[in-house]
């Protein structure tokens, strides 16, 4: 069924035999696992290769690597201040992983790792757990002041639960945003791709009309490339903002 737009998101085992069993559950090597390995290896190789010459006047590849470094460092510095830079490796890893996942997903016929809620939610949980651990490590029990806004006492009975819910919302909104963006874009591409096939097979004047959705696909593809970068950026900047709150509580530097 080439016309099912959701088929591209199916997680399929690539090797029939399960690799191992954990608590009775078979663990398969899936297309998702393969793409995640490719993404990780590719981003590591890209950065290593790009920086291997360490030229004073950078080549194109090297300046791409330097640009991504400076982009994330600048973002972290402006959102979380000087002491936020300790978390640069963390944020940079997340940014590169999401960026490469999104871009590899744009290759026709491949698989988009970030279109799986399991992956994005794992990433978002990692971010929030880091924020909680950092917050408690830095401020001790005083980290809980994050949930107490400056307000008169009677209002606090209302505001503290709201702040608490708003904090618990973060891993969900963070993961759903990335996953939904990827899912929506790729579904849209597949749906218009289906139109091309249907119209092209209809014969006569309709076959000529199939050029219209084809042109649209090209345009959407460009938009999706932008979205792929933007969503990696949004994920990383929100990580920075949450880290900033854990580091500085209410007092913004």
């Amino acid at each position: 069924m080439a016309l099912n737009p959701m088929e591209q998101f199916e997680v399929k085992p690539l090797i029939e035999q399960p690799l191992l069993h954990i608590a009775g559950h078979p663990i398969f090597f899936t297309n998702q696992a393969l793409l995640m390995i490719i993404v990780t290896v590719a981003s590591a190789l890209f950065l290593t290769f790009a920086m291997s010459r360490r030229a004073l006047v950078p080549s194109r590849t090297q300046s791409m690597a330097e640009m991504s470094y400076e982009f994330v460092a600048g973002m972290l510095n402006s959102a979380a201040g000087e002491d936020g830079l300790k978390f640069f490796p963390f944020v940079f890893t997340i940014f590169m992983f999401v960026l490469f996942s999104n871009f590899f997903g744009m290759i026709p016929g491949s698989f988009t790792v970030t279109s799986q809620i399991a992956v994005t939610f794992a990433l978002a949980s990692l971010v929030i757990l880091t924020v909680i651990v950092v917050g408690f490590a830095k401020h001790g029990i005083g980290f809980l002041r994050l949930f107490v806004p400056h307000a008169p006492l009677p209002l606090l009975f209302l505001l503290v639960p709201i702040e608490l819910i708003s904090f618990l919302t973060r891993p969900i909104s963070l993961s759903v945003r990335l996953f939904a963006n990827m899912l929506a874009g790729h579904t849209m591409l597949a749906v218009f791709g289906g139109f091309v096939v249907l119209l092209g097979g209809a014969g006569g004047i309709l076959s000529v009309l199939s050029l219209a959705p084809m042109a649209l696909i090209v345009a959407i593809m460009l938009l999706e490339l932008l979205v792929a970068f933007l969503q990696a950026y949004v994920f990383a900047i929100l990580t920075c903002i949450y880290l900033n709150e854990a580091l500085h509580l209410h007092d913004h530097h």
Partner: protein
Amino acid sequence: MPAQDPQSLRDLGKRLDEAQAKHAVRKTAPPQTSMGIAFRFATELVAALVVGGAFGWGVDWLLGYFGIHTRPVFLIVFFLLGAAAGIRGVMRAAQEINAGMAGQGPSVADDDEEG
């Protein structure tokens, strides 16, 4: 990094910064697509409602487990609180986006509860 750089080095650094600023790689927030903004608001709102509802449902379940039957009360209360948190999240997101568009870079919008 040495604690005190010679003055000439610092001058050079300043001139380098200026030169780089001229050819600046875009470091501020890239423009958001409208769909991105819409997704941002929608997820903030829906996620807060879901979390609020689930939290209330959990409180009800926990109390019911200990023999106190409150069933829909906390679900309703926390659902409403979730709605409030969702609106707050959308307002915060809007502030962040506005701050980004005003060219101040991706800095955090100040908390609105201050003052």
